[in-house]
């Protein structure tokens, strides 16, 4: 993954632990500052090494951490220098999800080393959006759950996210919208 993801993970850990503890974590888990350069493409092993280190240090299970990180990533990316892409992506969660593949394709043009997942809206009603998530990576379902949860929050929606099923062609997630905007 690109270093900007690692940076987000670092920020999340620093928010939770503070700078000194983070420096200690780097030392303890033999992580290098070189692994946090935004425009560098790192192997997934490095990414998981970082996630595992933070997970162990915070005493949080990997899936819980990934879920939290997914939520964190949305806010981080939206407020980061790359945040304008969020605005271009859409004004609401529905258009954003529809445009997500196109946005990823555009990002890929700049970061050709990236291996973007795809998101296909399977069902869309007033109160529910089902999305098929397809990725060559495995084990990131909790992260995707967190991402959808983060999007709900980002677009001011209330609701819940559920991982409905794992299929041969991908994983289906259901975003259940609640509150006044769901009926609109």
């Amino acid at each position, binding site marked *: 993954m690109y270093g*900007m993801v690692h940076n987000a993970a670092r920020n999340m850990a620093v928010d939770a632990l503070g700078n000194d503890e983070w420096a200690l974590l780097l030392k303890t888990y033999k992580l290098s500052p070189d692994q946090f350069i*935004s*425009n560098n493409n790192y192997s997934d092993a490095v990414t998981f090494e970082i996630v595992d280190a933070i997970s162990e240090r915070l005493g949080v299970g990997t899936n819980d951490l990934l879920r939290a990180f997914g939520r964190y990533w949305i806010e981080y990316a939206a407020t*980061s*220098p*790359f945040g*304008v*892409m969020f*605005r*271009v*992506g*859409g*004004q609401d969660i529905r*258009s954003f999800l529809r*445009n997500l593949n*196109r*946005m990823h*394709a*555009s*990002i890929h*043009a*700049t*970061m050709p080393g990236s291996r973007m997942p795809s998101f296909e809206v399977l069902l869309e009603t007033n109160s529910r959006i089902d999305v098929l998530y397809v990725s060559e990576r495995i084990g990131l379902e909790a992260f995707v759950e967190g991402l959808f949860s983060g999007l709900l929050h980002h677009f001011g929606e209330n609701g819940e996210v559920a991982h409905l099923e794992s299929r041969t062609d991908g994983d289906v997630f259901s975003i259940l919208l609640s509150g006044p905007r769901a009926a609109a």
Partner: protein
Amino acid sequence: MPVTLPSAHFERLFPGYVRFDETGKILSAGSSLRRLLGEQICGQNFLNTFEVETPRRVSTVDLLTDEREVTVKFQLSSFEYRMRGFVLREKESILLLLGHIPDTDAAQGASFLTMADFSPADGCLDLLVANEVRQGLLQETKALVAELKERTAEAEELANLDQLTGLINRRGFLRKLDEMLQEARLADKPFTVGLIDLDGFKAVNDVFGHAAGDQVLEQSGARIRGDLVKGTIVGRMGGDEFGLIIPGVSSEEALQELGSVVCGRFAEPFLIREGVARIGASIGFASFPNGAESAGALMEYADYALYHAKQEKGGNSVIFTADHQRNIRHRLKMERLLMEADDDEFYLVYQPIIRSEDGTMIGLEALARWTSPVLGEIGPDTFIRLAEQSGHVARLTLLLLKKALRDALTWPTDLSLSFNLSAIDLASAEAAKKIAYVVAASGFATERLQFEITETAMLRDIRRAQESLAMFTSMGIRIALDDFGTGYSSLNYLWQMPIDRLKIDCSFTQEIELRKDVRNIVQSVITLCRDLGIDCVVEGVSSNRQAALLKRMRAPLQQGFYFSEPMRSDEVLAMIGADNSGRPVSLPLVPAAIIKAGALRRSA
């Protein structure tokens, strides 16, 4: 083949289209244009809303010819926004299929745009996203650079700071000195560098431990820093040495006064957790521009003055003067002459080593001499130290060793040769190997050869010295510990090193008749050597009474002017020849009393 698209598909594919009639009245526009310019765009005149940039001079819509590329611009907030497209003339209307242009304005405009403003086939979106990503990366890089600068500044400050005293360290001090020198040169203003060394600090460390030493250093820094000439920079140079840069002061009187003030601050004892410590301070001053004109020279001269302050009595200050300058020049001249000296300028003299019991000479110690054609006779202490400091001692050792071995080959086989090695000769395996090679190549019996080394030589690098000495002893060469009693006199050496002989320093011999305590020390060392089964030579014997006393004290071997002054090789041979013949030796260097007493005899 004409393709008819449902209007929804047309809108998705061309969100920036605009259609107007022959009069220019806008009939419809794509969602993107409507969002950017408002729904009221429909009904307005095309040329009032858009300016056709290319082709030029389009003043009426008639001039927009079919199937022609077109660039239009319009005002969007505070900037001009451009779109580019294609003209399609229809039966009763003109259709412009416009798309966004990924220029700087468009990038700015990206804050207005969404995915819906772009046709799925429009690569312009990728360029806009790329632009944003790059802007983001650039912003992040700038933040990193700013952080790096901040950290560098912090690191720089730390790198120049002495953690113990809070003063700047040597690195920081030298930087400040460079800065001061530049300013002083430009403004033609004098300043002075002072180097301070604490007197008796080592004893504090030895007695109370390093923690106590640290407290004393910390307090010393505070005492030095307090109330100096305005703008004075104080630094810790390392160990127990501090530095001063005093702006605007260079007169002898002012510096003497300052020296007294700073030295006086050490009169009061230091209260530390472990007790009370008393130390002093010595200072060396060198001024710009009178003393020196470069940072290196200022430091060197201040250090030179400090050395003299410590040599005098300590606890005072010395200002670098023209006399010091002359001494340094002389030393440099001597160093140059030493470096350029011919081999013939160096020679050896030999001083006999005498067996106390019967006055028999059992060997001779080779002593180096240098006669410079320019400077004349230079004392061995001076030129050997200089050779050691300037890196020429290895050459001298090999040269003189060859000469000594050559001379000794002409002696009777029961006479041994003692040859002095420098610390540097033992400090590297390579130097020791060269010495061993010279010995082996000489053909001289190694059991007749003895290398004399000092404690200082071993202290330099004990492990390396042990290795070198082990190599020599494996060849059959014996080792003597010279000047015993003047250094640390650690008894460790007697079992850690392959010592065959111990030479008691002449400073003891000078006092042996006058002081009982000295006599007791010498007696103890003689007894110790006997118990350890090693030889013992008492050096510096200069009178008959000393010789007799040492004989009574059962000192096995003696050496000194009383028996013989050092002799040249031919004088040695003459003496040996005379002795061999049984006639009295008539060397002028041998005191008549000894010759009469028959003390100087070669062993049988």
